[in-house]
């Protein structure tokens, strides 16, 4: 099955349904914010959200009531402070109770790797002396059959859908990631379906390195051109991280009413086409 080019609306409508397990990845870089907004706009519910760093993108989805559960390893607004929507969901069950499954970065990175590798679990040297295994039943320990060494195991991550943002697709639908590539490739390969938003669709990638970080068109489900679609995160070579926006998010997210008004104005009454202007304002 070769990837299809679609609108963002079509891509989310055809790939994401209520109750799905979804990974939206991007490690500071290339976070698929436009796609996150589209999921809120389509009113999708009961999602299990997976993400190493559920920063602003999941703060929005959680506050908007799309999430049933969160699987994560670090939930903050990096360099700014807390995620107030996440915090309120956990502490005060608003807009409703949020189940959490908490891991370390190493565990999640290994779990994505194992998911991409078709394994049921990831085995790693982790959680030694740490308390998370007491509160997370999805952390177990096994013994190395050769040395007897005690190793941590977590279930692999195998989402129904993975959504990521990349710099480029070519006309055939192959995808190119550059810079901080995070766990995007693993997250796509681990998933049943995938949506890739891209800055641009090009005829070909030119003289790109043979060892570039890429996905072939047959390993991807839907491709959507959304210039600026990672804003307020960034796309190396296209625009810079909008650090000021991350700081501005803090007071918005602190207040339920301010948050609801922001979602109404920018998400419910907005669309993916709004992101190009944000890209232009943060040109590299």
């Amino acid at each position, binding site marked *: 099955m070769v990837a299809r080019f679609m609108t963002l609306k079509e891509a989310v409508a055809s790939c994401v349904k209520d109750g799905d397990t979804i990974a939206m990845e991007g*490690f*500071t*870089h290339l976070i698929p914010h436009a796609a996150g907004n589209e999921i809120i706009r389509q009113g999708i519910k009961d999602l299990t959200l997976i993400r*190493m*760093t559920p920063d602003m993108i999941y703060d929005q989805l959680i506050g908007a009531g799309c999430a049933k559960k969160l699987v*994560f*390893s*670090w*939930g*903050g607004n*990096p*360099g*700014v402070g*807390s995620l107030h929507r*996440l*915090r309120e969901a*956990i*502490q005060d069950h608003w807009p409703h109770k949020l189940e959490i499954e*908490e891991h*370390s*970065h*190493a565990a999640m*990175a*290994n779990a*994505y*790797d194992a998911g991409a590798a078709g394994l049921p679990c990831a085995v*790693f*040297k*982790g*959680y*030694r*002396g*740490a*308390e*998370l295994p007491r*509160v997370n039943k999805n952390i177990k320990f096994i013994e190395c059959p050769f040395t007897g*060494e005690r190793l941590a195991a977590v279930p692999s991550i195998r989402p129904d859908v993975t959504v990521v943002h990349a710099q480029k697709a070519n006309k055939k639908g192959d995808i190119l990631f550059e*810079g*901080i*590539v*995070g*766990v995007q*490739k*693993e997250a796509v390969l681990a998933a049943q379906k995938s949506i890739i938003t891209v800055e641009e669709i090009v005829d070909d990638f030119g003289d790109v390195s043979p060892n570039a*970080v890429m996905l072939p068109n047959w390993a991807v489900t839907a491709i959507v051109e959304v210039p600026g679609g990672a804003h*307020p995160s*960034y796309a*190396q070579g296209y625009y*810079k*991280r*909008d*650090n*000021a*926006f*991350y*700081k*501005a998010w803090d007071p918005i997210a602190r207040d339920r009413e301010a948050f609801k008004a922001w979602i109404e104005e920018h998400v419910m009454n907005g669309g993916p086409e709004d992101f190009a202007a944000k890209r232009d*304002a*943060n040109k*590299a």
Partner: protein
Amino acid sequence: MVDYSPTEMMTVSAARALKNDDVCFVGIGMPSAACNLARLTHAPELTLIYESGTIGTKPDVLPLSIGDGELCETAMNTVAVPEMFRYWLQGGKISVGFLGAAQLDKYGNINTTVIGDYDNPKVRLPGGGGAPEIATSCGEVFIVMKQSKRGFVEKIDFVTSLGHGTGGEDRASYGVETKGPSRLITDLCIMEPHPMGKQFIVTSIHPGVTREDIIENTGWDVEFADEVAQTPIPNENELSVLRALHARTAKAHEGQQ
């Protein structure tokens, strides 16, 4: 004689702990300032690694997040996050991990997960991120943290990452062979683990700070080494480099939106 703040004293002291040939896994915030200060002063060949996958990065401004574009643009190489945690951190390639904390006990065990009960937290903190494995896989761990009774506690609410456990040989009982927290740098002093018991003891006090200041800002019974040094004050070069770094950073982060 130059003027400096307690935070500057802390950052400079933390920077000095790094050697030119160290390979350092850098947490965000205070560790990032200290590590880059070291690189810009006495340790120009210091290798800085951020968990976003950047190896040997030399940012001109401090990143707001651990994955800012500046880190990749100035790095020798950028690898995928699973590779970073698997080959580089777990593979034992990192000599020093630099961590901050919300709560800390005298054995260097760290809490960045919750204040209160895990299932009904008083305050939900960001969580462990890379810390649980940074704490066990790096050759040694430096902790940098402002001193306070609230943060330096007898018993932390949640063990996000292992320090020396319950002290003595407890750390090794988890199968961990690395050194663990070997230095704690605060805005008041420097502490190092007791060679046997592994509890932190004060080994150097920053100028102008009294033993009482330290005791009042610590939630456990403070121990002092037999010989306590006075921390050398920041020199002019350290301060000017640090301030210029912060000034560049502030300008870069405000220049947008």
